[in-house]
């Protein structure tokens, strides 16, 4: 899922003008699950705005990244002067695209695509590079999980299973090595991985997916 974290409350306050009607718009999908922008968080933020003297309401729609859900909330959206969107960056942009006349601010910082590792802990897993090869690396993506995206083994900064740049981060290559060793597949690592074709990633420009078979 997409992981995001709430912006500092004072930064959110700084977007707002005294006296205006504010709508805090939560999103019911990824950011609900990672507990940063769902119904509960939207309500909390609107409560805080209330306590600070704003006329604030909150509402949460199922998926802010999809136009039709935004359009369903049209009435609330048009009623407000300013909207704080508690969706990921996709949601904020969808909302703004369909309500171009509204003042809209992001209430979250979208951080990564990842998984909940344990209660209260999320970890990045995918970069969306457009060319998945995790099966070559014991299902541990080195593009995402190695700080240098190394494809041919660990750098010299791996110590006791941790990455040198942040001691609480696992060295992806230690994980890859351990997993392949356990599966008796270390020979996979002897092959030299050639330079990647990054054109499928963000570096090839904004990406689009077109499916002629499902287009109307």
């Amino acid at each position: 899922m997409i992981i995001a974290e709430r912006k500092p409350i004072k930064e959110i306050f700084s977007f707002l003008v005294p006296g205006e009607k504010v709508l805090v718009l939560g999103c019911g999908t990824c950011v609900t699950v990672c507990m940063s922008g769902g119904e509960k968080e939207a309500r909390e933020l609107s409560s805080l705005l209330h306590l600070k003297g704003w006329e604030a309401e909150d509402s949460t729609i199922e998926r802010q990244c999809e136009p039709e859900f935004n359009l369903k909330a049209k009435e609330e959206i048009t009623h407000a002067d300013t909207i704080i969107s508690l969706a990921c960056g996709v949601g904020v942009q969808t909302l703004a695209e369909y309500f171009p006349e509204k003042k809209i601010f992001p209430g979250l910082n979208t951080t990564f695509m990842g998984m909940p590792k344990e209660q209260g802990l999320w970890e990045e897993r995918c970069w969306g590079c457009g060319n998945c090869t995790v099966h070559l690396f014991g299902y541990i993506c080195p593009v995402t999980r190695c700080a240098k995206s190394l494809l041919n083994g660990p750098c010299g900064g791996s110590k006791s299973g941790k990455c040198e740049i942040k001691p609480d981060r696992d060295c992806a290559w230690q994980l890859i090595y351990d997993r392949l060793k356990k599966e008796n597949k270390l020979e996979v690592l002897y092959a030299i991985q050639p330079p990647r074709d990054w054109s499928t990633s963000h570096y090839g420009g904004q990406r689009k997916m077109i499916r002629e078979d499902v287009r109307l």
Partner: protein
Amino acid sequence: MKVVALGCDKSGYPALLRWGEKELLPFEEVEVFSIPCLGLVTEEMIFQILENSDALLLAGCPLDSCHNQKGSRGAYLKTKRVNSLLQEADISKKVAIAFVTSGKVGEIEKVSEELIWREK
């Protein structure tokens, strides 16, 4: 200073009543309510109460002997979370939680002093 106090049926409410029997309470106005267990308290409820009061005082069973096991623990975590949000937003209202047994009010006194202290 207007304070709302919520106590659980088993421990908190009886203790709050006993505390209320004291002649001098440290607040101008205190409203006391009973609820079955502090586990029922939600962040939303806390915020709603704070709209019309300066502080919320929760009183419930001790963490390790909550009648409903995790009620007090849950309320404690929510209290912490709401307080940190209030603090981050520079709002001087707050929530406090006292873990009590029905007969003892000392903990409530301590926590209410904390509320006053933080008010300053």
